[in-house]
């Protein structure tokens, strides 16, 4: 019982990240501001990262943590591009809510 995580069951990390994921999901569903949407997505990504790290540690496999690393990289790229798009959309529409994106309407 020398480190904290040896006292914590893996299931608690799973519950924690599931809750975080659901909160992020709720945000994605609920909010309309595109920036907040992006933030909620980051939150969801982080919940997954947390889970991956926990599993990686508990299994003693470095692969999981490296995946987290890669996810971070991709998330950074995503955030950059996503924000750039947002800026452009805002320039054109003066708006960052998502319901103007209704070109998919049948």
């Amino acid at each position, binding site marked *: 019982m020398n480190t904290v995580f040896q006292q914590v069951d893996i299931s608690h990390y799973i519950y924690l990240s599931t809750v975080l994921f659901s909160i992020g999901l709720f945000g994605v*569903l609920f909010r309309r501001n595109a920036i907040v949407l992006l933030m909620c997505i980051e939150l969801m990504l982080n919940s997954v990262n947390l889970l991956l790290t926990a599993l990686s540690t508990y299994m003693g496999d470095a692969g999981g943590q490296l995946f987290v690393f890669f996810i971070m990289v991709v998330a950074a790229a995503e955030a950059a591009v996503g924000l750039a798009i947002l800026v452009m959309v805002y320039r054109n529409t003066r708006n960052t809510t998502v319901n103007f994106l209704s070109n998919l309407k049948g």
Partner: protein
Amino acid sequence: MSALPIPFLVLSFITILCALYVVTSKNPVHSVLALIVAFFSISAHYVLLNAQFLAIVNLMVYAGAIMVLFLFVLMLLNLGKAAEPIKSNAWALASAISAGSLLLILTAAFQKSGEQVYRNPSETVGLVKNLGKVLFGEYLIPFELTGALFIGAMVGAVLLGKRDSGDHESSALAEEKGASS
């Protein structure tokens, strides 16, 4: 099950609270700040899990770079308190039900999978030395590819962000349209 260690409980509490605030706050700036706090606490979780490298990277990349980028954009567009159309309660309910049902299902799925718990945690796996070996050995090619991805993302972001000189009229027109609608 024995009582959980205090640090874990506290950190988890902070994380969930901040996450909720991110989602519910009306002011995007507050959301960003809450999110940063959440990221900090997640980093702390990483520390608890003996994953020092990830804890640092998380701090630098997420809490540092990405969230600052968000803040910049918010400031730049002056969206501080921009009126976001408030959704109806029904909408909130629908969202909550959707997300909640997924939460339930996931939890149930885990419960059903039984007590298949890993009990041989490793203390060394998250150390920089260890990770570095794996990263530059087994995962070298994906690692290099992330570099290409970054270049692509960078170019894309720059191109998107750049205001094209020939684009003035059309964008002006679009602005008018946006204003009128």
